[in-house]
């Protein structure tokens, strides 16, 4: 028997029982819709986390001096003097995977302007720092390479510092402030960034040329860290490897010696967050799958009733020449048709639910194509799986008994 004929018969059976078919489909519809909506929410939150991390500079790579042991006492990494300006130069010259790089020295102190003062941290960097940290300027401008060279006493300040040191709302750019009693000219204000994921205030900073901080505030020649930006997020691990090799060369480490520095990318952080939200997605999908399963059982139930109800019809079909396989296919196709139609409606409902969630609840959502494909495939499989047994029961009927069935 041709497939087209079977489809016609199945279609007819469905159309003749519209309400019942719709009710049967409801389970599948809700199941599929919830799978799609749940996955969209999961994907959406994953993406928004990724975006948050990106805004912190997801391709950021940091090089710090390694902790050392001096006379049996482990030293804090920040007190190490092993990271040199030469290391920075070597990396800058030899690397191919980085787009920006800056030396970093930092120290804490009191920012003073007139009667106001505020404890903050000063970062000595070069102009590329803004690109690495993805920072914008609210007003003023970044210092130049020339100002770095001349160790100019210029600073940029974050919003928190502005709020506390200039509480009356006057324009900070052009004003003089003192940091640890050294006068600086404010040449720019950073755009507000708020707290980072760890609750740190990213606006409580003072930025100055690293030369200035090294010479005038800290009086050191070494670097606290080197910050760099890989060309892209995907290149970050490669950049880490490359930097490690350059640094080992620089520090003349033998093969059996451990690194006396550490190179880190944001990769680990991203993967931690991703795995958390993946877990969430799996949970949501598990819940949704259960409703899909219940939908499948609904189909099986109705197919059973349908086979029972149409026993006489089955007998007649067999009497006029329908083979067992024809009957099997008829009911199987009917089940699949129900589940797939339910699937299509479910996808539509899921998509509208996603739009609704995005629009009215303002949750980040992102519909992944794979979620549609998967739930569709699951629907077809559900139809086959739950339609098979009733269909086989129908096919195994004895035509004589079926014909006499009342």
């Amino acid at each position, binding site marked *: 028997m041709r497939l087209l004929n079977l489809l016609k*018969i199945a279609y007819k059976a469905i159309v003749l029982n519209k309400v019942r078919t719709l009710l049967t489909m409801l389970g599948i519809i809700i199941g599929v819709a919830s799978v799609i909506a749940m996955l969209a929410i999961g994907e959406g939150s994953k993406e928004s986390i990724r975006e948050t991390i990106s805004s912190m500079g997801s391709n950021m790579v940091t090089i710090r001096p390694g902790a050392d042991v001096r006379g049996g006492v482990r030293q804090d990494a920040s007190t190490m003097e092993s990271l040199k300006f030469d290391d920075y130069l070597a990396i800058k010259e030899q690397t191919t995977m980085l787009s920006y790089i800056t030396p970093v020295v930092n120290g804490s102190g009191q920012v003073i302007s007139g009667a106001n003062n505020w404890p903050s941290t000063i970062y000595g960097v070069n102009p590329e720092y803004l690109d690495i940290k993805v920072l914008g300027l609210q007003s003023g401008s970044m210092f130049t390479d020339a100002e770095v060279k001349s160790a100019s006493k210029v600073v940029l300040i974050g919003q928190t510092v502005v709020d506390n040191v200039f509480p009356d709302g006057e324009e900070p750019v052009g004003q003089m402030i003192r940091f640890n009693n050294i006068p600086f000219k404010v040449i720019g204000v950073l755009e507000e960034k708020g707290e980072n994921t760890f609750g740190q205030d990213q606006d409580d900073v003072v930025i100055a040329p690293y030369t200035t901080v090294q010479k005038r505030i800290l009086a050191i020649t070494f670097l606290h860290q080197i910050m760099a930006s890989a060309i892209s997020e995907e290149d970050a691990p490669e950049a880490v490897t490359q930097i490690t090799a350059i640094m080992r060369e620089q520090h003349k480490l033998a093969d059996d010696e451990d690194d006396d520095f550490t190179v880190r990318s944001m990769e680990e952080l991203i993967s931690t967050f991703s795995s958390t939200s993946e877990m969430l997605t799996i949970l949501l999908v598990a819940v949704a799958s259960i409703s899909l399963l219940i939908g499948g059982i609904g189909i099986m139930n109705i197919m059973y009733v349908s086979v029972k109800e149409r026993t006489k019809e089955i007998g*007649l079909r*067999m009497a*006029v020449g329908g083979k067992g396989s024809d009957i099997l296919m008829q009911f199987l196709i009917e089940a699949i048709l129900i589940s797939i139609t339910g699937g299509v409606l479910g996808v539509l409902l899921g998509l509208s639910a996603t739009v609704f969630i995005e629009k009215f609840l303002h949750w980040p959502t992102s519909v992944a194509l794979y979620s549609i494909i998967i739930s569709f495939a699951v629907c077809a499989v559900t139809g086959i799986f739950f339609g098979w047994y009733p269909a086989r029961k129908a096919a195994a009927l004895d035509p*004589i008994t079926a014909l006499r069935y009342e």
Partner: protein
Amino acid sequence: MAKEIIKIKDLKREFTMGTETVHALKGISFTIEEGQFVTIMGSSGSGKSTMLNILGCLDQPTSGLYEIDGVSVKDLSRNELATIRNEKIGFIFQSYNLLARTSAIENVELPLLYNSKVSTDERRERAIKALEMVGLADRIHHTPSQLSGGQQQRVAIARALVNNPVMILADEATGNLDTRTSYEIMSLFQELNKTQGITITFVTHEPDIAMFSSRTIVLKDGHVIKDEMNDTILSAAAELAKLPKEDH
């Protein structure tokens, strides 16, 4: 000699019910030739239904020979039996067995749906022709609930004719109809038998039906007790005319 459509020789059918064996048919032999209108009669328990199931290739004999149109049915698989039913037999049932909420033409097309050799266009064409033969050309899109009992049985007859079977097998085909309608149906059978030369086997327990056929086989307790040609075949059309006119 006319072609033998049905050839049955020493046919036996036994059923096992628990520990007991029931002998429903105890060695039956007869042949039906092309163009015959045979009535198989018998009271309940005579083996009539078992005979019908075997004739209709719905069941197989325990032993003995059964050939339909030269094909031995014994040892055929379920699927092969289905094909024989599809191509060689036209079934007509007491309760019509039409598909509900399905138009007359679609009901008639049903056997051809299971025959992949027939195209969609040919199927429709043959179904229309069969409906014309039973006088329902103007009702092809009516569903069973829009048709009277007699008309429903005509649809069933058209369905039995549509696959050009070698034999029509009717099971109490007039059992649900009043006298007038059953005479109408019988006259249709007679006409199909006479003008188209269609072989008809009519299984019934009503003696008056037998008078319209050309041959009567009577079963009792699994044996053929009577098998004779009917010399004076009544015309169903004439009998119908004799019935008192219905008040409308």
